[in-house]
């Protein structure tokens, strides 16, 4: 009972926070709504017994990435963009495209409803597969090559970001 309550509480808060991010006019409040959403998703990872990823989500997403976003917003000293006066047909088209994407996703999930596994793993097994120990063993044996590629990618991204943000680049 408590698990269902927790799931629905976190899910509703996550959706409400995502809507708040879309609706908020000020970019700073958009970013803070997204932080709330990321915390809710971290909580959902914990309800799935994926404790390691829950911690990583809070540390990297809600911690590092969102601080980067807030830092840039405040560095550029952004105000809310002015409202367009006339009705925008591009937004109507965007809404239609979004509904098509939604319909497609719902169709795919509905197709899979019959073949989806019910939770095969018991909660005890799930707690084992979600632990830092199991993930670390896989990362450092079977996935050691992708792990090193990710390291090089992060280095390249750091150098690229510094180059792009330099004053004389553009």
């Amino acid at each position, binding site marked *: 009972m408590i*698990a*269902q309550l927790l*799931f629905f509480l976190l*899910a509703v808060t*996550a*959706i409400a926070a*995502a809507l708040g*991010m*879309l609706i908020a006019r000020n*970019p700073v409040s*958009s970013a803070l709504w*997204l932080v709330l*959403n*990321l915390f809710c*998703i971290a909580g959902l990872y914990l*309800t*799935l*017994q*994926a404790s390691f*990823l829950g911690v*990583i*989500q809070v540390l*990297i*997403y809600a911690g*590092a*990435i969102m601080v*980067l*976003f807030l830092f*840039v917003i405040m560095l*550029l000293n*952004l105000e809310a*963009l002015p409202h367009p006066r006339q009705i925008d047909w591009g*937004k109507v088209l*965007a*809404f239609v495209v*979004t509904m098509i*994407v939604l319909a497609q996703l719902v169709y795919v*999930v509905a197709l899979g409803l019959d073949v989806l*596994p*019910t*939770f*095969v*793993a018991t909660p005890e097994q799930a707690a084992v*597969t979600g632990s830092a120990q*199991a*993930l670390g063993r*896989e*990362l450092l044996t079977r*996935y050691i090559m992708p792990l090193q590629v*990710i390291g090089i*990618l*992060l280095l390249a*991204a*750091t150098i*690229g*970001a*510094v180059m*792009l943000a330099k004053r004389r*680049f*553009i």
Partner: protein
Amino acid sequence: MEITLNWYLALGVVLFTLGVLGVLFRRNAIVILMSVELMLNAVNLTLVALSQAMGDVSGQVLVFFVISVAAAEAAVGLAIVIALFRKKVTVDVGEFNLFRY
């Protein structure tokens, strides 16, 4: 009522759609980048749910890599936004027409 895998997949669908809506609706380049992060998170949620349901660690390793790539993407994307802001003094994506002759 048991919370099954379907509920997590449905939540992933809703969050992904809201991310698509944000990318297409908003004009602020930084909010568009944040919407992309929301979409990545929706997919991560489905990956973790499936991985935990099947009792297989590989899905969570993939989520770990997705989070790393998202961090790299955010850093480079925000650097591009800063460079564009220096040139145009706005982050409205409707104002960016640097490739127009």
